[in-house]
């Protein structure tokens, strides 16, 4: 459990920071201290768990998540996770603190920290996860948060957008490969665990790592390649490295944290994590070794070419990531120790250097290396931080980086292969170039002449805290190997090993010394040297080419988009027919059948249904033939009612009721809307479509032809489908048998409110979304942005716009006679009573929360039709659709969650009356107080609100809309 809390803590921090109350009540300093304290506490907790991990090797904690799929939330803490966890929380605390002083603007800082804290949570979840699928989710979360952080300044800066897109494109592309690889790995592991079951699927890490024949599985090459692709893209290996320099448009604290210390090491982590199960296959190790060495060299060469301080650091990071990959690729996990030492050393010096770069950017407003120089006097603290950290990067003796480089060279040197010489050459050249980059950081930025025009201001002192502490660690960690580093590594490295600070004057030492010296020599000749380095292609150019091709393909596809519905219909119809015919479905199903009816006899109910069907056909034809829209709308209503009667005959009273109510509502809506549209506009289209009574022009015939073809196709399809429909009911039998269990008489009601309640919850959410869509469309469309709901002021204002508008309103409310007003006033309370009855007794007959909502909605719509928009709004002040929707959805969700307290599962059935001991009392009124009842209430309120929103939006007078537009232009009202 504790591990779950540890993982959740940063997310909670993000939520807390996102609360408006936090933003208004806590200042930037308070937020900084809070965030830093939390990360420090997590760091302390992980340090405290050290003895436990030492004793147990692995701590595994599991929570049920999706038991039906066998997927659990598993947390896994061993030496490797602990090492990464310490880096994430430790460096995290320093970065969080640093960020508090990097940002000047409190709101910007808050926004940044919400994402940075979310990232910290995702990254912790990644390294603490004991389940491959959970690991993948965390992996994707880090990509998403990284995208948000890189694009942090995306509103203003194009490079930020571009960099964010590039990073997401590459890392989530790799993640696609990764998920396939992980799923295949899980399936392969399932086969290994239980060969006879065959289809088992294993995602638990401890099971997979316990297998020792996975590397012999026949799928190994495929899933290993896919997983490595994911890791290579994430950890910026060549040729996918180019996103990392692009990511430097992130604010520097994010670069220091994500793009040097933690996220880019996720690929390294996963490789190290899976290595015990994979390393015995040479494909795995060789791929790692080759890609790693290549990346190491390329990164180092690119690094010295950079003119941007952060770009240099980014490519140096790429090079280091390559070195780590290569170390993990040494056979028999020989490089694991060196890799872990390298991770520690790199996290210490690179984060410090990034924070230095960020501070310089903050005080000098530039990161161009050639515009910087001579900052030693002004920024002495930064100077010494940089000296220590950069020398650690170069690998000068007794700094932490020195230990890392010694172990790296030592590990590579002991890899005896025909091409060890080549490997050593690559490693030494890269190391020398890295040393050169490190010297450049010191020399070009802090020494020499200060360029003219470079002005700096003093940064706040606390900004030095993080980098100084990290530099101090780089300085002393080498002397604390025995008490601190070695015990930690012993947890993660299976073999016994030694890690001296100074191994004596052996060949590794001389190589190391040579590299440091070579770096110094290169520094002296750097200017001509760097000019000499040119590249035929850059990763960016290739990326742009790829994007261009995608654009080109998109444009090519656009040529198929004519914009005419008829052509789309022809395409759709054509492809569906082709699929049905080509797949042989049609001929298989219809084999030995005649489509035309053989038996022409009909029962009485069949006759009734036939009559109703004919009625729908006639009414359908009328919607076409009747030119006036009002008449067509009424004919359309007839179709709906006829179908309702068919439902009734077919023993579906619930459906019939809903169908009729909805049909009425739809017809009313059409009629309200017709009142909104200028009659001239309507007449115009009627005239242009029906010019001359018998003038059936080409367009008419063409449309008729298409419709006849489509209608015939649907006819044939339906006929075949209906004649071949399955006889046996499947789960419906179970529903019928268990309807009594949920205190319902009506099986349909029981399915809607209980058995498939989640469906219904989503359905009302969809309905609400549609309603909000109508509102947004109409409100936004009218006002050109601004408020969604008309302000109370604009409602109270009487329309006094122009004569035509007044006339139109009178026109729309011409139904308002004393009699209709009386009816209107009576109908609403009756409708509410009917609605309540439908909710309370919905279980024992047709009608449920939905019909209740529609019934009340219909009564309200009558007010709008009869009294007009203004009077309806004035006389029904309690009818607040937005509030209803909110209330209804909240009740629905709370009601869905309450059964969890009764251990019934989400949307379970709870009998509150039984729990309260009033079952018999309410039962004597024919009532059952259950979770279904509250669900029905939620549905009713939501639907009522949704309908209200739709009615108000559609009935909103046009003249008022024009007035609103004028007001918003003048800056009043809205």
């Amino acid at each position, binding site marked *: 459990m504790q591990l779950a809390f540890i993982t959740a803590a940063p997310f909670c921090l993000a939520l807390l920071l996102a609360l408006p109350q936090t933003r208004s009540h806590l200042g930037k300093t308070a937020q900084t201290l809070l965030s830093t304290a939390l990360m420090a506490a997590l760091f302390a907790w992980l340090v405290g768990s050290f003895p436990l991990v030492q004793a147990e090797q692995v701590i595994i904690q599991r929570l049920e998540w999706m038991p039906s799929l066998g997927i659990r939330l598993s947390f896994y803490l061993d030496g490797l996770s602990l090492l990464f966890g310490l880096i994430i929380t430790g460096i995290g605390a320093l970065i969080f603190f640093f960020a508090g002083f990097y940002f000047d603007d409190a709101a910007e800082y808050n926004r940044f920290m919400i994402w940075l804290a979310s990232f910290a949570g995702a990254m912790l979840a990644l390294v603490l996860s004991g389940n491959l699928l959970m690991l993948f989710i965390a992996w994707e979360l880090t990509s998403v948060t990284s995208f948000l952080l890189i694009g942090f300044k995306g509103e203003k800066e194009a490079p930020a957008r571009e960099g964010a897109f590039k990073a997401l494109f590459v890392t989530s592309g790799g993640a696609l490969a990764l998920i396939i690889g992980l799923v295949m790995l899980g399936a392969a592991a399932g086969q290994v665990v239980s060969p006879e079951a065959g289809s088992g699927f294993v995602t638990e890490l401890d099971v997979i790592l316990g297998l020792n024949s996975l590397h012999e599985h026949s799928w190994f090459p495929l899933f290993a390649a896919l997983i490595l692709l994911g890791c290579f893209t994430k950890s910026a290996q060549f040729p996918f490295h180019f996103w990392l320099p692009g990511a430097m448009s992130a604010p520097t604290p994010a670069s220091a944290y994500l793009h040097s210390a933690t996220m880019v090491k996720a690929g390294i982590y996963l490789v190290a994590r899976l290595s015990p199960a994979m390393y015995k296959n040479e494909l795995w190790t060789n791929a790692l070794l080759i890609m790693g060495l290549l990346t190491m060299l390329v990164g180092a060469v690119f690094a010295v070419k950079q003119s941007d301080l952060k770009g240099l650091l980014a490519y140096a990071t790429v090079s280091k990531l390559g070195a780590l990959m290569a170390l993990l690729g040494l056979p028999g996990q020989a490089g694991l120790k060196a890799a872990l030492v390298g991770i520690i050393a790199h996290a210490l010096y690179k984060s410090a250097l990034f924070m230095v770069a960020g501070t310089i950017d903050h005080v000098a407003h530039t990161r161009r290396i050639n515009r910087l120089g001579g900052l030693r006097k002004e920024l002495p603290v930064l100077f010494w931080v940089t000296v220590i950290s950069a020398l650690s990067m170069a690998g000068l003796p007794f700094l932490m980086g020195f230990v890392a480089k010694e172990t790296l060279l030592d590990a590579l040197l002991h890899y005896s292969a025909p091409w060890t010489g080549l490997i050593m050459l690559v490693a030494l050249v890269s190391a020398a170039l890295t040393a050169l980059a490190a010297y450049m950081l010191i020399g070009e930025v802090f020494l020499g002449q200060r360029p003219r025009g470079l002005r700096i201001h003093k940064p706040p002192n606390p900004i030095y805290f993080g980098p100084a502490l990290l530099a101090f660690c780089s300085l002393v960690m080498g002397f604390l190997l025995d008490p601190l580093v070695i015990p930690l590594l012993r947890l993660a490295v299976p073999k016994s090993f030694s890690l001296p600070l100074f191994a004596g004057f052996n060949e590794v030492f001389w190589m190391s010394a040579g590299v440091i010296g070579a770096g110094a020599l290169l520094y002296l000749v750097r200017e001509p040297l760097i000019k000499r380095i040119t590249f035929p292609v850059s990763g960016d150019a290739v990326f742009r080419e790829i994007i261009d091709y995608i654009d080109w393909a998109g444009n090519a596809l656009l040529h198929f988009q004519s914009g005419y519905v008829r052509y789309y219909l022809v395409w759709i119809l054509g492809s569906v027919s082709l699929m049905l015919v080509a797949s042989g479905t049609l001929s298989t199903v219809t084999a030995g059948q005649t489509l035309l009816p053989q038996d022409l006899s009909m029962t009485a109910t069949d006759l009734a249904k036939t009559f109703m069907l004919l009625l729908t*056909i006639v009414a359908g034809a009328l919607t076409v033939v009747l030119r006036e829209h009002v008449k067509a709308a009424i004919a359309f209503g007839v179709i709906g009612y006829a179908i309702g009667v068919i439902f009734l005959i077919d023993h579906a009273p619930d459906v019939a009721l809903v169908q009729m109510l909805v049909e009425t509502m739809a017809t009313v809506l059409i009629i309200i809307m017709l009142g909104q549209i200028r009659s001239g506009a309507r007449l115009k289209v009627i005239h242009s479509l029906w010019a001359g009574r018998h003038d059936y022009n080409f367009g008419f015939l063409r449309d008729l032809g298409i419709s006849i073809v489509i209608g015939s196709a649907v006819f044939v399809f339906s006929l075949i489908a209906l004649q071949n429909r399955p006889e046996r009911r499947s789960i419906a039998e179970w529903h019928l048998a268990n309807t009594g269990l949920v205190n319902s008489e009506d099986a349909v009601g029981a399915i809607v409110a209980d058995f498939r309640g989640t469906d219904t919850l989503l359905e009302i959410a969809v309905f609400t979304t549609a309603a909000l869509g109508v509102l947004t469309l109409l409100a936004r469309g009218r006002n050109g942005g601004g408020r969604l709901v008309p302000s109370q002021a604009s409602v109270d204002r009487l329309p006094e716009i122009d004569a035509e508008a007044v006339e139109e309103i009178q026109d729309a409310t011409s139904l308002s006679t004393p009699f209709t007003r009386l009816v209107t006033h009576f109908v609403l309370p009756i409708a509410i009573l009917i609605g309540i009855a439908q909710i309370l007794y919905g279980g024992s007959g047709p009608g449920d929360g939905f019909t209740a909502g529609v019934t009340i909605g219909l009564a309200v719509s009558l007010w709008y039709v009869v009294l007009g928009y203004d009077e309806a709004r004035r006389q029904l002040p309690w009818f607040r659709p937005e509030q209803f929707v909110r209330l209804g959805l909240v009740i629905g969700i709370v009601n869905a969650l309450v059964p969890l307290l009764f251990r019934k599962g989400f949307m379970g059935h709870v009998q509150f009356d039984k729990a309260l001991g009033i079952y018999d009392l309410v039962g004597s009124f024919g009532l059952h107080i259950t979770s279904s009842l509250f669900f029905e209430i939620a549905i009713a309120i939501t639907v009522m609100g949704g309908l209200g929103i739709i009615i108000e939006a559609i009935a909103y007078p046009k003249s008022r809309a024009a007035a609103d537009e004028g007001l918003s232009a003048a800056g009043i009202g809205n």
Partner: protein
Amino acid sequence: MIEFMFALAIGILFGIGVFQLLRRDLIKAAIGFAILFSAINLFFVAAGAFEGEFAPYLSNVQAGRSVSDPLVQAFILTAIVVSFGSFSLLLGIVNIISQRYDTVDSNDVTQLKH
């Protein structure tokens, strides 16, 4: 036979709906869209609710009467509600087009992008 009638009605209603969509009159197009929905709902009910002599109520089940398939009905309920939601969205679109462009002829509307 009744299957044939259902199929016929479904096919014709579908054709009518498509025809309305193809014409340039946006109001009629909205109506046509709703007719398409009706045809599809009709198809579902025809596919599911044929057998059974009684409504799917517990008392009918306990009395041993054959009842119609409740699951299909529940699905149609959902379908009706969702299609009504999309229909009202469509009406909203037609409404805003008619106000913005002062027309209900889809050929007059050429600048929806802006």
